[in-house]
């Protein structure tokens, strides 16, 4: 059975005198390296030029806010359960009166930490999240000299209202279709839900 067309038969033939001089081979090699002087270089000058990521690239996480600026996360812990690397930990808190603008539901995550050294960026947290709160983005986790620096708390994960992070590129048509299943209709506006209850 032939698997490739690059098969070479091994031979143990003696080297001829010319081969033993090595000079033709050396000159040949030097011509090859010299020819590389004029080849196109694939280098990407990183900070100035950036490689374009695939639309489904999974980078640093974000905790999304909803349209009114309230945090979507309700600290249900599904992401932590789904996480194969056990990188996610959280503590829940109860929403007080007057905090309706801050948190979407009665329960919220008081602390939410992802250990970026453990995280394998598999995206299971994103899939597990019933509230569409956590997403992986196209951002790169920055480097650090200390291990502590890699434990990302809410200060780094929750998106800022003035710097909303677009995750629509990650949403393939399949995902969008999946999210439209009636049983999973959890993504409507908070206020709309309240209005519906009144009718």
């Amino acid at each position: 059975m032939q698997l490739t067309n690059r098969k070479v038969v091994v031979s143990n033939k003696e080297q001829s005198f010319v081969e033993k001089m090595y000079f033709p081979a050396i000159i040949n090699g030097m011509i090859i390296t010299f020819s590389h002087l004029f080849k196109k270089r694939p280098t990407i000058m990183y900070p100035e030029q950036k490689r374009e990521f695939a639309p489904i690239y999974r980078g640093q996480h974000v905790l999304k806010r909803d349209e009114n600026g309230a945090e979507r996360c309700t600290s249900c812990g599904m992401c932590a359960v789904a996480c194969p690397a056990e990188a996610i930990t959280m503590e829940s808190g109860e929403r007080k009166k007057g905090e309706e603008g801050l948190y979407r539901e009665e329960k919220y995550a008081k602390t939410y930490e992802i250990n970026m050294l453990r995280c394998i960026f598999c995206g299971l947290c994103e899939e597990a999240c019933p509230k569409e709160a956590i997403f992986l983005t196209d951002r790169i986790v920055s480097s650090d000299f200390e291990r502590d620096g890699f434990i990302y708390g809410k200060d780094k994960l929750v998106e800022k209202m003035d710097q909303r992070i677009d995750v629509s590129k990650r949403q393939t048509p399949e995902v969008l279709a999946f999210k439209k299943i009636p049983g999973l209709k959890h993504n409507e506006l908070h206020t709309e839900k309240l209005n519906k209850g009144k009718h």
Partner: protein
Amino acid sequence: MLEFIIYKSLICVAVFAVSLGIAAYSTWWERKFAGLLQDRWGPSRAGVWGLLQPLADGGKMLFKEEIIPNVSNKFLFVLAPGLFIVTAIMAGVLIPWGAPAIMNGTTYAMQISDINVGVIFLLGVTSIGVYGIMIGGWSSNNKYSLLGAIRSSAQMISYELAMGIALIALIITSGGTLSFAEIVAKQDAGVANIVWQPLGFLIFFVCALAETNRAPFDLAECETELVGGYHTEYSAFKLGLFLFAEYINMFVSSAVMAGFYFGGYNFPFAHELYNALGLQEGSWIISLIGFGAYFTKTLIFISVFMWIRWTIPRFRYDQLMNLGWKSLLPLSLLNLALTVVVEYFRGNIKF
């Protein structure tokens, strides 16, 4: 007399500065050239095309922590890199950078000193360089350093022999003179020594690679076998001096090859060019143009050294010894015999 002293000190300082400058920028060019040969860009961050890189490297070397091992022989440990770099620079004394210029009736040679046993001086000084390596490796009191040093000195001794015999053939071709300046001046007629000494040049070139500890003969410092070779225990600027001396050696031996075999400051149609420009014999402009020609040849040779480094893999130690003793030595003897025959028929030798 005062004029003579000023002119000699000026040329000394100039050669010193150029040697160090070239050594510094060789490190940059080595990295750049390596990058270009390997489809990369090489240094590009410090300054335009990374041109400030040698300064940054020098600064780093200066401010790094200096470590002298407790068990070392401290005096020799400090002496070794100095000895190595001094011998490296000393070989540059002989190089005649341009045709002598005549001003106000005085002849100014573009050379620090025209020693009439120049070739022997050159061989002697370059072989002192091995003391730097040997002392450095021994005084570290580290067996890997010592092994590296022994390998390096054995290699140098093996290749010195073939180099010396190749040079004897060269001396016969240039009419028996041992003076560097005369050997270069004799190639004025437009025929460089390479025409009469192709095999000799090849032997000399390979030996020069081995003598300067350049790849593929850099067995003194193969990381995988000997940690770091003879300079394993060295840090900061003392290590810098060792590496610097290697580049100075490379510069000097490139200049020597360009002078001995490729005509030095002479180049084809030089006299036609000078006549067209209306320059008198002994004009300083001729010296300057000659210097340009010599320097270009030297830089090309440095690039060839690097080109070889990034093409040919390192020799195994027994292969190195085989090449030195079983190939280059007989070849250089053959070359010597051939040279004598050829020179007899050219009429340069009479019995």
